[in-house]
């Protein structure tokens, strides 16, 4: 039994290994980017539009609305980052219906990379919105006493983001694997469906949490709605 797709190695040349994680990540990236490219090649502004354009419009406007509800008043600025996170994680868990596909998010390297990009993006957007000094001041917000705790929380929530996504997706795949060895064939199918549901919820949560963190880092200058800020801690 393998615990992560990192251990499935397709091709190896010296130090360089092509494992399932890299292969499926690139496959997903190519499918997502190429598919979007194909759909957006001929867009229509009229009432007649292709069904794929409809799908993309639903996706983009839906993500935009969610980002706005979290408290970021200009969702267009952040949709490139947050939307990509959501679409990638969601596509990775949807594609588990394809036989032989290991979701790349079941590997700790992928989720750590995603969490690190959130870790970098939060100060980036914060500095862009508030300026360097104001952003750094926000680390000492209630009192300067809180400085170490704010820094620790920044690090620990990055760790939690990575471990949460990894644990959920990996345990879904592993439960299916264990059930395949001990039960008739129908139960793993049910668990796969449950895993897909978990995967979608996790994709939503990953991107919403990233949005909440960004909203917390950018909010000081403007008054923002209070809906989600209790969760940011």
């Amino acid at each position: 039994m393998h615990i992560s797709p990192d251990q499935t190695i397709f091709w190896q040349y010296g130090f360089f290994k092509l494992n399932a994680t890299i292969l499926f990540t690139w496959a997903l990236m190519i499918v997502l980017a190429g598919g979007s490219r194909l759909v957006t090649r001929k867009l229509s502004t009229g009432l007649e539009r292709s069904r794929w354009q409809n799908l993309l419009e639903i996706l983009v406007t839906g993500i935009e609305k969610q980002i706005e509800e979290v408290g970021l008043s200009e969702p267009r600025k952040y949709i490139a980052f947050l939307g990509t996170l959501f679409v990638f994680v969601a596509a990775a868990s949807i594609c588990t219906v394809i036989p032989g596909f290991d979701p790349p998010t079941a590997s700790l390297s992928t989720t750590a990379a995603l969490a690190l990009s959130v870790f970098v993006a939060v100060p980036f957007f914060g500095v862009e919105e508030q300026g360097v000094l104001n952003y750094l001041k926000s680390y000492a917000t209630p009192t300067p006493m809180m400085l170490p705790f704010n820094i620790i929380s920044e690090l620990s929530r990055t760790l939690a983001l990575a471990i949460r996504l990894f644990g959920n997706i990996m345990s879904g795949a592993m439960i299916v694997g264990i059930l395949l060895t001990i039960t008739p064939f129908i139960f793993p199918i049910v668990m796969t469906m449950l895993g897909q549901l978990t995967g979608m919820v996790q994709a939503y949560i990953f991107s919403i949490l990233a949005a909440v963190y960004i909203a917390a880092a950018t909010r000081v200058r403007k008054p923002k709605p209070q809906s989600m800020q209790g969760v940011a801690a």
Partner: protein
Amino acid sequence: MDNITIVAVASIVIAGITTGFGAIGPALAQGRAVASALTALAQQPDASSTITRTLFVGLAMIESMVIYCLLISLILIFVNPFWNHVIAQTAGK
């Protein structure tokens, strides 16, 4: 019992205990969270989108505790870091 048996027994037993006990608290917490969310939904159906979103995020945060425990169990069973150490020690003897 030799060293390998002790490590194996300890790992397996602790793996079970970790997930078992680790699931108790978050299960109670999730039950409470869902119950309060349902009450809030019944009282204010208009705020359903906000309540649902906050509920999902909160549930994920609670659930991550179980996931940490599960991760520790899986590490103990499948990629136990103490195995290599003990086996190397026994082989060196």
